[in-house]
């Protein structure tokens, strides 16, 4: 409940800021035409009304001390979240997205499959690495070689050369 309230309030502040931001940065429109700022501003007005109603609903549901209780457990919940598999999973996905181009598809995919597989409970290392290698090879060969989809080879010279080597040994049709 506390998280819901915080998210709603953050969106509300963001919406109010965006209302003024779009109003000041867009050129003034003629009086009989719908300008570039009016459509987003109309959406924001409706959004603010809906958010206010939703916040009222959260506050109403949080009476009888429920909301206060929820705020009290916010800190322990946050600590639990940062220690959870979910947070680690989110971090792995984010790191993978950042390394995708510099390290190239093959290295990123292999590292991602191993780390996420481990996170999801696979503890047999040989099996995990073997599966990851096979899936990486299948994905790379299917998409980059057979379907002609451009996948990043990486900015690191030896990784790039390795990707080029793999592509050169597979016959294309």
């Amino acid at each position, binding site marked *: 409940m506390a998280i819901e309230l915080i998210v709603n309030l953050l969106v509300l502040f963001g919406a109010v800021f965006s209302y003024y931001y779009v109003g000041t940065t867009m050129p003034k429109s003629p*009086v*009989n035409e719908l300008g570039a700022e009016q459509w987003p501003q109309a959406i924001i007005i409706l959004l603010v009304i809906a958010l206010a109603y939703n916040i009222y609903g959260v506050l109403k549901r949080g009476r009888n001390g429920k909301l206060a209780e929820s705020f009290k457990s916010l800190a322990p919940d946050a600590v639990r979240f940062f220690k959870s598999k979910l947070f680690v999973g989110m971090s792995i996905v984010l790191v993978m997205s950042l390394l995708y181009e510099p390290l190239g598809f093959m290295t990123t995919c292999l590292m991602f499959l191993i780390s996420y597989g481990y996170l999801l409970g696979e503890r047999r290392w040989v099996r995990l690495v073997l599966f990851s290698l096979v899936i990486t090879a299948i994905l790379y060969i299917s*998409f980059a070689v057979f379907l002609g989809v451009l*996948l990043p080879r990486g900015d690191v010279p030896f990784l790039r050369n390795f990707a080029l080597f793999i592509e050169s040994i597979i016959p294309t049709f």
Partner: protein
Amino acid sequence: MDLLMMGIEVVFAPKMLLLIVMAVFLGTLFGALPGVSGTMAVTLGIPFTYGMDGVSAIAFLVAIYCAAITGGGMTAILFKIPGVPSSAPTTYDGYPMAQQGKAGKALGFQLICSAIGGLFSAFCMLLLSPQLTKAALSFGPAELFAVSFMGLSILSSLDSDNICRTIISGLLGLLLGCIGLDPLLGVPRLTFGTRFLNSGVEMIPVMIGFFAVTEVLKQTNKPAKLKAVGNDEGNNAKTKTEMPTFKEVWSMKALLLRCSIVGTLIGILPGAGATIASFFCYSMELKLSKHPEKFGTGIMEGIAAPETGNNAATGGSMVPLLSLGIPGGNAAAIMMSALVLKGVTMGPLLLINQPQYLAATFTSMFAANVIMVFAAIIIAKAFVKVLAIPYSVLGPTIIMLATIGAYSTKNAAVDVKLMAIAGIVGFIVVTCKFNSSAMILGLVLGIICESNLRRAYTIADGATLLEATFDILQRPITLVIMIFCLIVLISPAVKKIMEKKKKTTSA
């Protein structure tokens, strides 16, 4: 007839036919995997289309979509886990049938009914789309705005228990659609000085993030394996699909016809899709049945109704997409994005200038629904083994497939980052009980709505905005559609208030 010949020419070319067979296998497999919805199956199919032209791409994606909706029923029957949300009602009677040792019969019936629904809607699409296109050609920007607004008006009906949150989600999607260069003036809007946002929020990475990454994140804390009914080891390889006899199918002709018609009509409605169609058909048949008490105990009608309805909705959802350029649902929205990426201009002129799109979609749907029956028999045997693959392998592979799809949109790493962020935001959205489908609907339709509305105001007579609004509303088609939209938009809220009042009065 010309359209049909054109479609056969496109789809039955050896390479295309092979691609459709591949799409059917992929789609059935994706659909059968719990956690991979029909929309996600189409999303995961996008990277395969990058090397294709627009016509082949739509034929391929349509085949995946049809097959995924059917594949979802298999897990519903064998595991009581709907592979796709639209297969949820199939579990009510499919699983009890499997428990009674009639899993093969249930699977066979599910396949035949899915094929009947799919074929019926494909024919409807072929007949209706050109007529709707002809009517749509007389539409001006005001009418086109009203039609696209009709898609948005369904927002309040998407989740009747959470109307306010669903509307907030839709509005957030609309606001996201405003980011980037203004469609008419070409000035940066809501970009906060960042050049990365100038091209706007790319739809495909956001959709992939919302549907694929969020789903895997949601499953991160869940058990890794599934068990098939009647076998503790999860090894159900002996399950053999048993096709129903002609007599059995014929005995349900009225039900099949009703559900095919209703499913197609629901599919045509923007925003309503296969899930609504299957639930609606199930409850409709329950009400019409002479023995409603038997529903839920494992009867054929309980499988036939939702499976015919959800597959009929697939064809229906393609009607507004092809004839008006308005997606009928999430999967259609993704197909639309994939086509736009290929430089195809969606709208009424598409079928006039390039009728091969309708022809290819119809023939692909037709071929997919026929091939699907045979493919699914093979897959039904094999996929129990696929499901035995632990999620520790399957989950990360889904994310990597999604990553390929996001990156290949523009060969830009920024889209992979956008996908990752969208996945995390999607998770927060779900946690806060907002509706990610509504957000996507807002994002896709917002751009179409805004450009048409602003064009309508530019053309309209009036010294002020208010006068121009009256001028726009004087157009009869616009007025009728807008009144309809208003009714659709407020009716769930009114219904809820009435129910509350009734409860208070009776208390």
